[in-house]
């Protein structure tokens, strides 16, 4: 029940809030069971009390009614709220997926596709010149043909690199080996030196690993782009059904959620699996962003 913005007001009773909220916060899957057990108890009490009410006089009936009302609040009333939260997060997941496809299409169009088109043009020119030279209808300008082929070769090499980077952006191969190796590669590629601490004894589900990886990648990119930091730290800890990714830096701070930037994108992505995002970034720094995800989506 933790959509991070808190745009949906919580409706649970004060008792639940005080006693078990903290526990449930850390174990999202326990919400359902807790409500179910509590609701069941109240249904049982309500039915017993109404049965006794018929024997012992009607004085117990209002109490029985109260029990059934509490049971209703616990079992039925939270459902529309949860449905709305799921609708929110599903809409964001769909938007996220559509946005990713759009970005891939743009990257392909501007990158490898354009490069390969230029390569094909150069090769077409070189081919014409060679054909003319072989057929004796044109000058044998080998130097020019060489330059064209060399430029085409360079272009093809650039296209290969761009395709590889793009493929890695869709699914980093290192992630197949687990979050540890993937984050090690990620930290090694960072422009700002990164201290890495990974404590992930058990692998979370693949979807969670992917989200965690891209969160870490985005956060490290932000450090390099915006913070002017000299050092960053990346921490990944998986314990008690919760995966926590934290990126901190010694830069100039001032990072915030403004509804458009990369952090808002992260929040949306994290929200699709009921995860949370915490930002601490006072002006002047340091900045620390923590992402908490359930082990399984």
């Amino acid at each position, binding site marked *: 029940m933790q959509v991070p913005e808190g745009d949906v007001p919580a409706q649970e009773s004060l008792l639940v809030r005080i006693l078990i909220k903290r526990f449930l916060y850390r174990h999202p899957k326990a919400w359902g069971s807790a409500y179910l057990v509590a609701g069941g108890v109240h249904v049982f009490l309500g039915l017993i009390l109404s049965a006794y009410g018929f024997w012992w006089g009607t004085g117990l009936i209002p109490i029985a009614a109260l029990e059934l009302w509490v049971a209703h609040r616990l079992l039925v009333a939270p459902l529309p709220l949860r449905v709305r939260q799921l609708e929110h997060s599903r809409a964001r997941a769909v938007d996220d997926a559509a946005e990713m496809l759009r970005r891939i299409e*743009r990257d392909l*169009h*501007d990158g490898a*596709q*354009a*490069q390969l*088109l*230029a390569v*094909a*043009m*150069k090769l*077409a*020119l070189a081919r*014409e010149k060679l054909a003319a030279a072989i057929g004796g209808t044109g000058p044998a300008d080998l130097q020019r043909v060489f330059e064209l082929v060399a430029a085409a070769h360079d*272009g093809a090499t650039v296209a290969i690199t761009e395709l590889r980077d793009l493929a890695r952006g869709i699914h980093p191969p290192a992630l197949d080996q687990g979050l540890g190796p993937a984050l090690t590669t990620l930290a090694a590629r960072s422009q700002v030196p990164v201290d890495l601490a990974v404590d992930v004894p058990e692998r979370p589900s693949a979807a969670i690993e992917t989200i965690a990886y891209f969160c870490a990648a985005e956060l490290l990119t932000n450090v390099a782009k915006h913070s002017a930091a000299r050092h960053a730290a990346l921490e990944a800890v998986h314990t008690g059904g919760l995966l926590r990714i934290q990126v901190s830096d010694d830069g100039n701070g001032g990072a915030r959620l403004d509804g458009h930037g990369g952090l808002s994108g992260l929040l949306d992505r994290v929200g699709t699996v009921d995860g949370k995002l915490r930002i601490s970034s006072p002006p002047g720094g340091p900045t620390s962003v923590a992402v908490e995800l359930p082990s399984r989506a």
Partner: protein
Amino acid sequence: MRIVIAEDSAVVRAGLVEILADRGHEVLAAVGDGASLLAAVEAHRPDVAVVDVRMPPGYTDEGLRAAIAIRRAHPGTGVLVFSQYIETRYAADLLGAAPGGGAAGVGYLLKDRVADVGEFVEALARVATGGTALDPEVVTQLIGASRRAIGLAALTARERDVLALMAEGRSNGAIAGILVVSERSVEKHVANIFAKLDLAPSDADNRRVLAVLRYLGPA
């Protein structure tokens, strides 16, 4: 030819300049967005403008809109539009852009066609001299989507080939070259096509294109 190029990808732009310069054509300006294109056409009055559909700032159809504006303001300047994907609607918009509508000096090609330098430069020359160049894929889509399937069914296979090439904007001579037949027999096929489809015969290549497109089009 005196040419202005508008293409947002720097590497493709450089490639276009290279192949056109290599053939002795004069590239007056090579720009990366629609507004610069309009300014360049205004300043240089080229024979033809090569325009990519998708350009900044919105990366949707900025190039197409600039091309339509050029068609309206400078009917004498040929416009060859190319795009990554063929949208039959774009072709219709372009052909309808000139006052009174017309296929003179209009081209619409798949971007990949520039890889075949010879074909591309030939299409460009056609557009620069008031001809038409439509991508074979546009024509295939139009024929495939045409509601006049019954009329088309009356054509022989060879006549359909001729119809498709005619719709691309080729002259009888060019069609004869591609199909490896005499120009005389192409003329005969064309006459048969116009008779079977009940179209008014026309000598000018681009009026012929327009007649065929009107026939094939959804209208």
